[in-house]
C-alpha cells in the first residue's frame, strides 16, 4: 500500500523509488558529471534494449544511476525519462530512435510542434547518415531549408510514402490524423509532459511500446474549457500524457537525466531546488568553466550596467525597480528589458565555455527576453525597435542589427530553447496580487532555465510581500496528486536567491 501511495503522490516525479534520483548530485561537476550522465543514458538505452528484446537483461553500468527499474521495465510497456532543462533530451531521443531502429524495430517519433519535428529529423539524419528518416507532414507544410539539406530525410503525407524509413517523425497532431491502422512496435514521445492525455489517447493505438521523454518542470498542458467533470479520473483528458500513463501503469519505471549541460554551475542548484525538489540535478560544468566578460567598460555605469556585470560575475541579477502597481505592459519595466539587452550588446559581451574555449561574442541571437504575456513580448519588441532606431551610444548600424536579432517571447514559446543570456520580465512584477496563472511554477521555471551563462530578472520591488499576502485557497481534489513544486513556494525560493543579487534601478 505504501508503495502505491507514494507512486500516486509523486505523480510524474519518479514513481520507481531510487532509480534516477541523485540526491547527492546537486551541485556541479566536470568529469563526474560526464560519467554520471553517460551512465544514466546507457542505463536508459539498456533498459530500452531489454524491453525490445523482451528478455530480462542487466542494464550495463547502471549501478550509480540505480537499476531498480530495469527488472520492472521488462514487465512494462515503456519507460518515462524526466529531463531537467538542457539535460540532453533531444540527443537521448535521437540515440534511442537509432538504437531501436538499428535493432530492426521501426519507430514512430512524436513531437509537439513542426519546429521540433524538423529539429529531430535533422538531428537523426546527422547522427546516422545511412539511416533513412521519414518526416510526415500535413498538406500545408513548407519544407524548411535544414530539412531539405538532408538527402536522407524524406517528406511524405502518409506512412505509405515513407515505406523505406525505419524512423518516422511527425507532430502528435499529424499522427492523430492518420487513417488506416498502420502501427509501430515502438514510439518515442518527446515533450510528453506538454502533450495532453487526450492526444495520447488518439495515437496510443499505433504503438506497442513507448519511451516518454519530457521535462516535468515546464508548463502543463492547457484547455480553455473550465470543468471539473473529469477531475480525479485517472484518464482525465485535461492533464498531461505522462500523468495519465503513470496513473494506469504505476509500475512503469521513471528515470532521470541527472546533468544539465545548459545551465551553468550558478543556476543548476537554484533551478533544481526550486523546481525539481524531489529529483535534483547537477550542472555539467564547474564554477570556473564558463565566464562572461565585456570588451567595453561601462562608462558612468548606471544600474543596467551594474546588473549585467553582476549577472556576468554571479550568473544572476535582479534588476529591481520601485514598487508600484502597473498594467501588464509596464512601460518602465519593458524599457528596462530592452535597455539591458542593449547594454549587453553595446558592451560586447564575450562568453567563454566548453563549447567556445576561446570565447564567443554574445550576439543578438544568443540573447532572449522572456515574458509571461504576448502583449508584454510585443511591447518589448517595440521597445527594441525604438532603441534600434535611436540607440543611446550612437553606434547605430551593427548594434541596431543585433538588437533586431534578440528573441523576445512568452514562456510558452521559449520552452525547449537555449540562449547565452536571458532577461526575464518577472511574471509578478507590478501586480496587485498573484493568481494561478502568474504563480504557475512551470512558467517561472521555463523563464529561469533558458540560459547558459547568466539571467537578469527585471521586476518591481515587493514580490516577496506579494507572495506573503497571497491567500491560499486553491481547491483540493480527491485522487488528484498534489502538484509539486508548488508555484508559490518555487517563487519564494527563487526570490530568496535573488535577494542578495539585487541591483536597484533607483
Amino acid at each position: 500500500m505504501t508503495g502505491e501511495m507514494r507512486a500516486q503522490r509523486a505523480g510524474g516525479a519518479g514513481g520507481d523509488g531510487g532509480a534516477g534520483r541523485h540526491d547527492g548530485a546537486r551541485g556541479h561537476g566536470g568529469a563526474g558529471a560526464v560519467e554520471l550522465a553517460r551512465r544514466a543514458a546507457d542505463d536508459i538505452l539498456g533498459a530500452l534494449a531489454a524491453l525490445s528484446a523482451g528478455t530480462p537483461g542487466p542494464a550495463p553500468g547502471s549501478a550509480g544511476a540505480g537499476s531498480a527499474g530495469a527488472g520492472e521495465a521488462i514487465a512494462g510497456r515503456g519507460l518515462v525519462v524526466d529531463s531537467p532543462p538542457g539535460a540532453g533530451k533531444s540527443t537521448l531521443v535521437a540515440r534511442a530512435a537509432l538504437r531501436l531502429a538499428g535493432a530492426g524495430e521501426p519507430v514512430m517519433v512524436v513531437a509537439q510542434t513542426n519546429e521540433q519535428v524538423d529539429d529531430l529529423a535533422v538531428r537523426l539524419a546527422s547522427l546516422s547518415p545511412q539511416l533513412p528518416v521519414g518526416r510526415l507532414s500535413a498538406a500545408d507544410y513548407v519544407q524548411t531549408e535544414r530539412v531539405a539539406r538532408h538527402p536522407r530525410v524524406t517528406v511524405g503525407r502518409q506512412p505509405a510514402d515513407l515505406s523505406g524509413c525505419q524512423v518516422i517523425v511527425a507532430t502528435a497532431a499529424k499522427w492523430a490524423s492518420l487513417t488506416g491502422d498502420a502501427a509501430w512496435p515502438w514510439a518515442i514521445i518527446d515533450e510528453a509532459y506538454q502533450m495532453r492525455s487526450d492526444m495520447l489517447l488518439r495515437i496510443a493505438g499505433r504503438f506497442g511500446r513507448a519511451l516518454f521523454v519530457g521535462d516535468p518542470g515546464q508548463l502543463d498542458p492547457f484547455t480553455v474549457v473550465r470543468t471539473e467533470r473529469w477531475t480525479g479520473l485517472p484518464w482525465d483528458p485535461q492533464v498531461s500524457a505522462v500523468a495519465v500513463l503513470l496513473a494506469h501503469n504505476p509500475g512503469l519505471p521513471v528515470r532521470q537525466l541527472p546533468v544539465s549541460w545548459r545551465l551553468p554551475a550558478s543556476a543548476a542548484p537554484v533551478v533544481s531546488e526550486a523546481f525539481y525538489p524531489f529529483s535534483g540535478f547537477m550542472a555539467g560544468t564547474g564554477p570556473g568553466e564558463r565566464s562572461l566578460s565585456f570588451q567595453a567598460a561601462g562608462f558612468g555605469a548606471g544600474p543596467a550596467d551594474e546588473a549585467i556585470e553582476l549577472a556576468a560575475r554571479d550568473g544572476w541579477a535582479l534588476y529591481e525597480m520601485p514598487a508600484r502597481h502597473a498594467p501588464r505592459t509596464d512601460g518602465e519595466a519593458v524599457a528596462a528589458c530592452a535597455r539591458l539587452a542593449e547594454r549587453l550588446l553595446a558592451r560586447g559581451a564575450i562568453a567563454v565555455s566548453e563549447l567556445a574555449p576561446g570565447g564567443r561574442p554574445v550576439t543578438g541571437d544568443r540573447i532572449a527576453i522572456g515574458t509571461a504575456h504576448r502583449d508584454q513580448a510585443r511591447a518589448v519588441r517595440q521597445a527594441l525597435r525604438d532603441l534600434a532606431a535611436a540607440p543611446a551610444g550612437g553606434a547605430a548600424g551593427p548594434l541596431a542589427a543585433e538588437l533586431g536579432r534578440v528573441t523576445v517571447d512568452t514562456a510558452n514559446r521559449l520552452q525547449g530553447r537555449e540562449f547565452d543570456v536571458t532577461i526575464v520580465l518577472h511574471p509578478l512584477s507590478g501586480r496587485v496580487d498573484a493568481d494561478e496563472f502568474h504563480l504557475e511554477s512551470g512558467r517561472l521555471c521555463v523563464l529561469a532555465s533558458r540560459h547558459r551563462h547568466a539571467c537578469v530578472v527585471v521586476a518591481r520591488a515587493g514580490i516577496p510581500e506579494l507572495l506573503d499576502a497571497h491567500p491560499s485557497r486553491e481547491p483540493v481534489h480527491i485522487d488528484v496528486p498534489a502538484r509539486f513544486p508548488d508555484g508559490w513556494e518555487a517563487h519564494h525560493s527563487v526570490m530568496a536567491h535573488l535577494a542578495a543579487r539585487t541591483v536597484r534601478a533607483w
Partner: protein
Amino acid sequence: MNAVEARLDRLRGSAAPRAHNARTISALASNPGCARRAVMDAAGVDKQRVAAHVGHPAPFGQSQFAITRGNAFEAQVKAGGCAQLLRLLRERLRLPIPEVSYANLDDVAGDTSNKVRHARTRALLARAAASGQDAGTLFDHPLLRLRAGGRAVYLEPDLIAFQLRGRFHVVEIKSFAVIDGQADGGKVAAAVIQSAVYVLALRDLLAELGTGPEAVSDEVVLVCPKDFSNEPTAALLDVRKQLTVLRRQLARLDRIEDLLAQIPQAVTFDLEPDAAGVPRRDRRALELAIGAVPARYTPECLETCEMCRFCREEAAGSTAALGRATRDDLGGIDDIGTVLELARGSVPPADHQAEAAAAIRAAARMRGEILGATG
C-alpha cells in the same frame, strides 16, 4: 514577548480571548495580507461581536440541520471504538492495522481543563512514540497546542490520530459527501488545511519529546459520506503544500510586533460591556478603532471573515470592491472616481498612471462609440 501580549490584551479589552482552533489557524492563510484580521485574530478578538456592534454583522450562520448531520455522521463513524473507521482504514485504504485499542482524550477522569487534557495527551503520545512500532491505538480528541502569534494556543480537538509502523496519521471526519469519487474542492481544501494544522501541532508535541517530524505522516485520512448514503468512505490527502503555507504564515504571525508598532497606542476593540454583558462602547469610537488598522478587503472575504461587511462598506468606491480581476484590469488604480475621471480625460493622469489611463481611455472611447455618448 510580554509587551506584545499586554498590547494584544489591551486591544481585545475586557473580553476573554477567543479560543483558537484548526479553523482559525487555517484562516491565517485565507487573507494573510490583511493586517486588520491578523491583529484581531492575534488578540483573540471576537470579530463577530465587534462587527455586529458597528452594525455590520457577518452573514454567517449554520443551519441546525447541518450541525445535526455532522455530529450524527461523526458519532456513527466513531461508534463502537471507531469500528467503521477501522474497517475503512483496513478495507478501503488497505492499511495493515492490527488489533487496536481506543483512547478517548475528551476528559481525564472528569477533568476537562485544557491543561490536564493536554498533559494526558502528551503522556499517552509519548508512550506510544517510545514504544516504537505499533502501539495500535486510536487517539480520539487529543488536545494539542500550537505556537501562534507568540503564544501557545490550545486547539479544539477535532481529530483522531493513529499510529501505524511507527508513524502517526491524522484522521479528519467531515460530513460533506464524496459522490462518484468527487467532492467539493473548496470543502476538501478547508479540511486539508485544518488537518495540516493538526499535523503541525502533533509534530510540535513530538519534537518536544525529542521525536523528529517524520513521525507524523504528511498524508492525512479524510472520511466522508459516500454518494447519497450515510456509509463512510475515505481518501488519503497530501498536506505537504499546506504545511509549507502554514509554517510561513505562523512565522509571519510571530512578527506581529511590526504590525502593532503601526497602530496608535490608544486603539482598543473593547466593547465595554455593562454588568449584564451588553456592549456599551460608543459605536463611532469603535469604528475609528477598527479603521486605525488597515484592512485588505477583497470580495472573497465575504465568505471567510466576520469583519467582511464592515470592510466592504469601508472599501466602497474602491476598485478592490469590484473584485480582483477588475482591479487588475484597471491597471491597479485604486479609486473608482479616478478611473472614471481618467476615462473622461477630465484630469491628466499622473506619471505612474499614464499607461493604465491610456487603456481606460481607449476602452471608454469604444464604449462611447458603440453605446452612444450616454454609455
